[in-house]
């Protein structure tokens, strides 16, 4: 194991027997990677790509069929809703038993359970049997228990998606805090925004094998592109979401003269005006707009963080204007999104996703999505070389 590595996998493989067919399946094969101590690895891939099997192996819940895997230090994990909870015990009792199972004294486990109660905000339900919990409540309790005591390595599977926006944000804050304390994170998720901000490296699994491994920006960008090409943009359906610190009051699509329009021409100005209210003070929010073709293809999504613009503290009502001076989109139907994220671009304060439709008409005979600036040239080469 490299001196500074918390996780090292070498030619890792996991085979599951399928008795009915007298054969088996390789859920993972030839996997080699390292996670440095205090680092954070994002694990992405489509369903069935082997993400959960990898996390099971890291947790020690199952054993590799081939290769080696070394994980330095105890592991805390949140891999499946309700896993590790006894339904007849209350949330508090489960928290105490989980602490005891991790080797805490009962006195310490009770104190930690008190802290978990404050974090998960389940109110009276904390003292009710877990069998009465909703999926979201189970997720809260699960995350609270898994993250209550810092472990050298913490694993989180997709379960965070179950919680509401407010609690997701608290979970991500806690993961950021754990990382700051030196915990090594391995996070599997479809939330690419969160992964980009939390993780420095990413592993993209396809059919149980490493498809890409490297800096998270690069790998997640490639993965996102892959999803786009599959016309499955980011799995996010049109709609309004967010944690509520910012409220979007009105969105107008206008031309250069400020006239509201629903149809534009290729090459003219598209201006998106957003009237928003920072309900509570927010520091340097990431403000952005995005354009999608109506089949979900993501065309472009500039934001103030990428442009290093418009930082500072916001409180009250403002108008954000995004201008596309020479709209390059070719003819078709499109939708605009508007989003306000926290400064780390992890969770959305307000996000109106593909809620603002518009059409683009074009006189150009070009094919495709956008009109890119281009030129053609023909250079005479000579008859001999031309023939070759």
């Amino acid at each position, binding site marked *: 194991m490299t001196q500074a590595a918390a996780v090292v996998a070498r030619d890792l493989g996991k085979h*599951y*027997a399928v008795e009915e067919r007298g054969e088996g399946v390789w859920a993972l094969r030839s996997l080699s990677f390292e996670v440095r101590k205090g680092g954070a690895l994002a694990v992405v891939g489509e369903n069935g790509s082997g993400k*959960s099997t990898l996390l*099971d192996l890291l*947790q*020690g*819940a*199952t*054993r590799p069929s081939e290769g080696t895997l070394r994980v330095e230090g105890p*592991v805390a*994990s949140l*891999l*499946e809703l*309700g*896993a*590790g*909870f*006894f339904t*007849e*015990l209350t949330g508090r*009792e489960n928290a*105490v*038993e989980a602490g*005891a*199972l*991790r*080797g805490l004294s*009962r006195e310490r486990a009770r104190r930690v359970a008190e802290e978990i109660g404050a974090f998960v905000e389940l109110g009276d339900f904390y003292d009710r*049997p877990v069998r009465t919990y909703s999926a979201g409540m189970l997720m809260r309790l699960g995350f609270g228990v898994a993250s209550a005591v810092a472990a050298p390595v913490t694993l989180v599977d997709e379960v965070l998606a179950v919680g509401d926006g407010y609690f997701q944000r608290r979970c991500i804050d806690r993961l950021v805090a754990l990382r700051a304390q030196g915990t090594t994170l391995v996070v599997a998720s479809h939330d690419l925004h969160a992964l980009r901000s939390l993780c420095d490296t990413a592993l993209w699994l396809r059919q149980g094998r490493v498809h890409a491994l490297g800096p998270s920006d690069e790998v997640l960008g490639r993965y996102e592109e892959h999803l786009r090409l599959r016309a499955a943009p980011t799995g996010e359906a049109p709609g309004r979401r967010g944690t509520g610190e910012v409220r979007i009051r009105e969105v107008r699509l206008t031309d250069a003269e400020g006239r509201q329009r629903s149809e534009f021409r290729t090459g003219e100005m598209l201006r998106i005006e957003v009237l928003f209210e920072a309900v509570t003070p927010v520091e340097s929010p990431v403000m952005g707009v995005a354009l999608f073709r109506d089949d979900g293809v993501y065309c472009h999504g500039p934001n103030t963080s990428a442009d290093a613009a418009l930082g500072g503290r916001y409180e009250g009502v403002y108008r954000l204007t995004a201008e596309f001076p020479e709209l390059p989109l070719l003819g078709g139907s499109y939708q605009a999104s508007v989003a306000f994220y926290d400064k780390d671009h992890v969770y959305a304060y307000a996000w109106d996703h593909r809620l603002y439709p518009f059409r683009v008409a074009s006189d150009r005979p070009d094919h495709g999505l956008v009109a890119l600036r281009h030129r053609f040239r023909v250079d005479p080469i000579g008859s001999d070389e031309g023939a070759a």
Partner: protein
Amino acid sequence: MAIPAWTASVGPLVRADLRQRYAGSRLGSAWALIAPLIEVGAYVLVFGWLARPAGGPDGLGFAAFVAAGLLPWSALREALDGSAAALVENRWIRRSRVPLELLVARAALASVARGALGVLLVLAWALWQGAAPGLAGWLLPPLALCLQVAACYGLGLALAPLAALHPDLRPGLTSSLTLLTFASPILIPESALPGAVLTAMEWNPFTHLLRLYRLPLAAGGVGFGDVSVALATPLALLAAGAALKQRWFWAARDRL
């Protein structure tokens, strides 16, 4: 050797199991007493009146005799059923770090209530009859119950993964235990059994435990052989169970 951390969680889990078992019913935990007594009453009716074997005690004496055997036996069945279900009915264990030992120990210990009721009924009956059970009579029935729990835990460690690997095991186990109910001197006094049957029953470790349970009834003596088998069986099952669990557990976990 350090005590595993999970052992501290067994008590709270068993308490919660017992609390949960009759939660919501009007009679609540009174069912823990009523249900076994009805079970004993049904067998007493059949074997003490309708099909009464020759020899053995009459009336309430026969009820005490049945309770002393049937309730610990029911506890054993409950423990083994629960152990066999420990993995297949808690599939979430696949993605958690909860040790299988905790689930099996919970199943073994949750059955103690029923067995303890049998022990208490027998001791109460002996006192009511004015019989002094003696030191052995006081100590051996509770010891038998402890040994039974240990044996169930050992056997349960092997049954839990095996039941996940072979789904036919659970119904097979239930049927076998039903058969053994009548292939052990639980309902019929040993004095009423033919010699050959009694010899065959000597191979059943529960026969020896039964003699320990029934010592306060003075329904036959307890020999060195009975105590030896009662002590050796749990030790052997604990060792075998731990070894077999190691052998089968990972394959069973992957099968969940």
